[in-house]
């Protein structure tokens, strides 16, 4: 489930990026106003890469331990905190991800993650980047509690104005429901898959949803072959159902 979610991440990220696409005049504006969060994140990433390289070459346990004490998260913490105070919720997502490296004890991490998640949900759920927050909730579901995450996903799936974030929430919710025993969870998952398929049937994402729904016993002799849409390298699209009325041999292959 996690692997599939990770595979999907680029899809959501890509779509969110498209939604964020800016016009040339906005780029001009941007270069004047600058995005403080992106800049800070870039700076942090640079510092982090440098620190990692240092850690790799450090000799001896003592030197390594000393370096761990100087984790870039600690150096950057206040700057992200101040961005968060100024109302940029993306900094909260960063903070939530960085608690461990800040040096918090395991017992302190969960309550802090809960606090940050609630803040994100309350104040930032309609932001274009909220998909990142949703992804972090999924990752932190053990800390946040599966029930809280599922309730949150249901809310976002229903109320978010961004359809990509809606789809992401539904998709993740299906993954979590799959692990819940009982007919009610199964029915809720089926209903969500139905909604997603209605919207995304002919996309890569829709195929993945179908794959989620298909069980090994659905692929045995005597069962209907799952519908799919294929695309040739020249961009010609076709469906399995285009070949209804013919005997079809599907050959899954690679030249590698």
């Amino acid at each position, binding site marked *: 489930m996690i692997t599939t979610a990770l595979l999907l991440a680029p899809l959501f990220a890509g779509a969110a990026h498209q939604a964020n696409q800016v016009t040339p005049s906005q780029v001009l504006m941007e270069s004047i106003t600058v995005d403080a969060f992106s800049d800070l994140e870039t700076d942090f990433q640079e510092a982090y890469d440098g620190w990692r390289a240092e850690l790799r070459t450090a000799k001896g346990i003592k030197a390594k331990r000393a370096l761990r004490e100087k984790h870039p998260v600690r150096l950057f913490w206040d700057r992200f905190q101040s961005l968060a105070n100024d109302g940029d919720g993306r900094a909260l997502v960063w903070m939530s991800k960085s608690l461990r490296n800040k040096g918090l004890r395991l017992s302190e991490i969960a309550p802090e993650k809960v606090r940050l998640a609630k803040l994100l949900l309350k104040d930032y759920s309609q932001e274009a980047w909220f998909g990142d927050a949703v992804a972090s909730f999924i990752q932190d579901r053990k800390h946040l509690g599966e029930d809280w995450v599922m309730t949150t996903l249901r809310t976002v799936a229903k109320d978010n104005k961004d359809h990509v974030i809606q789809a992401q929430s539904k998709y993740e919710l299906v993954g979590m429901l799959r692990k819940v025993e009982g007919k009610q969870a199964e029915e809720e998952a089926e209903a969500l898959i139905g909604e997603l398929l209605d919207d995304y049937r002919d996309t*890569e994402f829709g*195929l*993945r949803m*179908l*794959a989620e729904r*298909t069980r*090994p016993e659905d*692929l*045995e*002799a*005597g*069962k*209907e*072959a*799952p519908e*799919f849409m*294929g*695309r*040739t*390298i020249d961009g*010609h699209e*076709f469906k*399995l*159902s285009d*070949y*209804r*009325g*013919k*005997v*079809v*041999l*599907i*050959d*899954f*292959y*690679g*030249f*590698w």
Partner: protein
Amino acid sequence: MPHLQELVKLHQDSPFALIGVNTGDDPETYRKGLKKHGVSWISAYQGEASSIADLYRVSGYPTYFLIDAKGMIVATGHSSSAMEPKIKELLADMKKSKD
């Protein structure tokens, strides 16, 4: 592959279609492969993606799914020559029910 070409040739006048679904080749290897192996039938190209193969829970290559005219799965397996008699049988049945 040579066997698949024969298969397509053998059934070219029958209601039979071979559909390739490629997974894992980069575009260059793929285009070269199509030419080298004389792939004249339709072939879906997925690049790094594998969603169709995932949908069919393909775990080894090649894997074949034989599907009848109504869209029902008849047989699955990893050998095209094992599929051949079944294809003939299906086509013969279709012809019989038509006659």
